């Protein structure tokens, strides 16, 4: 489910960049009102965030980085100061005591306190990404294709006036995000939380006991005291128990399957092996939102640190057709068994390729959007990344990772387009 704003943006981009002549029309189209937090996610600059925190708290946070304990802090961005915010270590595989990923909560200690309308945001530490760009590039592509995803920008983080490294500001998936994205926020939001020691899960039927789904792996993020897990049970049973004849009709109540395959296609295009079709745990890294007063769910992308690592030759059917049946995702397998959804999946991959290859205005034979974006971000963050005192990668590894991203951007579209053609020919 995309925002009206994103749909408009996508439409405008297609019109402007595809046909070139429609700019005056787009300019006259109604544009969404600017949000107060737009400047905070302005990705044309590297921001600077300063946190003042008791020195012992910062040490404690680093030592106990596996713990979710909040620490009080004063937050400064540009000339704006927010006092008494709460920060804590966050992340799963990216957790680090050297360079902690942080969640910043403005309303942790002061109820209803917000910053530019935001209740919280994430400072991603990029400890799994030498390029520092996987996350931001992926989310941009999701948004370009009209799929819900967080906005992101890079920032230099200072703790007690000491530079602690290059981070990515990530928009929290919370009620503010839901309101902006879906024009409502009173539905039921879950974060898919895959415990590292849990059995892999592929949306198979675990029975009718709601406890096997909520609070893990579907962790309630809203309505925590009354998370209504029965709708997830119904969805899972619909996936697993509905006959072929009724499947589409029954599932339409729970999921927009075309949007779903589009979500998976974008993850596949960016070669994310830790998304909905994860190499680890079966499924991973998404939020799941059930609209208010409906049974309808939608996926929201999350954490694309592992994207691009599979290289530009990452199979478009990775974890779809390969592997044993027991480890194939039940929902994806059933969805792609329908020719129109199979075709929609391939179309979505081609959309990704087209978006990645999109030329700059007035240019016909230059680098595509993705390659330009890699270069733009690299130039933005290069100095901050190289001088990052807590980075977990060497500067050479950073440069090599950026080069690999450039190669990915140049070749991924062609590879995917060829693979889609081959898939269609075989069908």
């Amino acid at each position, binding site marked *: 489910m995309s925002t009206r704003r994103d749909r408009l943006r996508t439409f405008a981009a297609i019109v402007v960049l595809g046909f070139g002549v429609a700019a005056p029309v787009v300019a006259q189209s109604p544009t969404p009102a600017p949000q107060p937090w737009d400047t905070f996610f302005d990705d044309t600059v590297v921001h600077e965030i300063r946190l003042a925190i*008791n020195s*012992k708290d910062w040490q404690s946070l680093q030592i106990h980085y596996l713990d979710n304990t909040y620490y009080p802090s004063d937050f400064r961005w540009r000339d704006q100061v927010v006092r*008494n915010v709460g920060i804590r270590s966050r992340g799963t595989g990216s957790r680090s005591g050297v360079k902690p990923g942080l969640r910043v909560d403005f309303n942790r*200690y002061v109820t209803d306190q917000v910053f530019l309308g935001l209740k919280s945001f994430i400072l991603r530490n990029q400890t799994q990404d030498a390029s520092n760009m996987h996350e931001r590039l992926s989310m941009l592509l999701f948004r370009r294709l009209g799929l819900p995803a967080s906005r992101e920008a890079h920032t230099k983080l200072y703790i*007690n006036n000491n530079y602690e490294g290059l981070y990515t500001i990530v928009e929290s998936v919370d009620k503010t995000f839901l309101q902006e994205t879906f024009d409502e926020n009173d539905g039921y939001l879950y974060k898919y939380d895959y415990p590292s020691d849990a059995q892999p899960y592929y949306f198979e039927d675990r029975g009718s006991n709601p406890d096997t789904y909520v*609070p893990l792996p579907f962790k309630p993020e809203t309505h925590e005291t009354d998370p209504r897990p029965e709708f997830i049970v119904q969805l899972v049973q619909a996936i697993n128990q509905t006959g072929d004849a009724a499947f589409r009709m029954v599932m339409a109540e729970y999921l927009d399957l075309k949007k779903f395959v589009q979500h998976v296609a974008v993850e596949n295009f960016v070669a994310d092996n830790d998304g909905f079709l994860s190499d680890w745990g079966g499924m991973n890294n998404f939020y799941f939102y059930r609209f208010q007063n409906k049974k309808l769910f939608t996926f929201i992308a999350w954490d694309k640190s592992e994207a691009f690592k599979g290289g530009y030759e990452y199979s478009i059917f990775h974890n779809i057709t390969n592997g044993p049946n027991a480890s194939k995702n039940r929902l994806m397998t059933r969805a792609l068994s329908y020719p129109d959804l199979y075709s929609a999946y391939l179309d979505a991959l081609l959309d990704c390729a087209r978006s990645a290859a999109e030329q700059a205005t007035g240019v016909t034979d230059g680098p595509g959007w993705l390659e330009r974006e890699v270069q733009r971000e690299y130039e933005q963050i290069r100095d901050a990344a190289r001088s990052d005192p807590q980075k977990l990668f060497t500067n050479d590894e950073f440069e090599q990772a950026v080069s690999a991203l450039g190669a990915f951007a140049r070749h991924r579209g062609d590879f995917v387009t060829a693979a889609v053609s081959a898939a269609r020919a075989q069908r």
Partner: protein
Amino acid sequence: MIASLLVVMLASEGVTTVGAVHAVGAALQQDPPAQATSGKKQKKKAKKLAADAPSPDEIDDPDSDGPPDIGGPGFGVVWKQHPSIRFGDAFRLDFEARLQEDAHGSYRGAPGLNCPNQVLPTTCLFQLHRNRVGVKGNFFKKIDYEVERELTEQELSDKDILLGYTPKSQWKDVNVNIKYMKKAQIQVGKFKVPFGLDELTSVSHNDFVYRSLGANYINPGRDIGGMVHGSYFKHGLTYAAGVFRHDGGNARSKKVQGGDQTVAARITAAPFRRVGLAGNIDVGTALTVSSLSDDPYLPNGLRGRTILTQDTFFQPVYVKGHRKRWEADVDWTAGPASARAEYTWVADGRVQQGLGDENLPDARARSWYVAGTWILTGERKRRPLRADGEFLQGGFGAVEVVGRYERLWFDSAGGTEVGTPSRTPRAANILPSGDRALTLGVNWALNRWIKLQFNGIREHVEDSQRNPISGGGAFWSQVTRLQLVL
């Protein structure tokens, strides 16, 4: 199980004697020493009981007196108040059990009413609140000992301990009391830090289902240490002073380590005993000083929670330096009536606890309560409540109405001069947060072993944003407790 216990207790109404062991009647053993007044025989008995005076952690606790040993050689088994093994004057071993089972209710979703070990929050009507067993006794009447263990405490998992959570001991009172010098007895082991009238009243003797907020959350409770204590003027003046490893279990929780080495002293007096005022008035005061470390990475300050529902209305703040406590109390009894009042003040140092490592003003916690009781069936007030005529034994038991009004609140010294009030654990000016509670109840002591307590509790958390009720209003909780004491 409860029915079986009842049968066993009723069957044990008599005394089983093996060998040369004797026991005196229940009426005598329940008389506090100060009440024995006239006649040589009674004076002699009073003197005898005074020698067996309650330790400071069980003020006015007739249970702990037990039947006086008449002495004599030989081994015997007695069951009067407790099953007891004795070997003349050389050795005594009493077996004790205290079981408290609750049925409770409050507003929907109250965290304190949740069933244990449930994936999703589920309210439980019944709770096994306390199930304690123990032994106590003495050697040669000069060395008392006591061991008590709680059977219902949940142990922490390895993961909890790795996360820095503090284990709560299942061992309660584990100590010896050496009383070669009556006026300077020495107690060593784990027992209650001598602080707080309500806290020092045995949980099975309390007038209410739950102790006061101040006793529960800012009084020390039990700890390991050593103490010298004694009394003068037939308990007209008592004192206790000791050193403890920490500052008691009440200041600790799963996440809070609490204070470190603690010195404590308490003194009580009955100043009007000879003046002839109505009833007995005891006044007491106590203080403790503890060192406070910021070594734990979690805030180490005191925490405020509601009584039954366990809503946290004040989260611990970061502290370092010293924790100073002071309390004053008064305890009045006259015939079937009694009244108690207590005020407690705590100040926690906050050295280098600001965001910029600067010193912050002391964090404070204060509490008070006033409580009154009246025995409708006319018995003289004592703790525990005892019936002149036991239920189904020719009487109805003792019925008592009780009431208590109290407040517990937290803030910091310095006021608004040091900054805007805030709820953060490093706020220079801590936003005040408190809880006011009114408890009304009825106690029914059926016999020496069984007591039923009915309490209705109205609470109002003062900080509307920490109030569990939307709109910031008051809420009622109800609890019925069945208590069995062996």
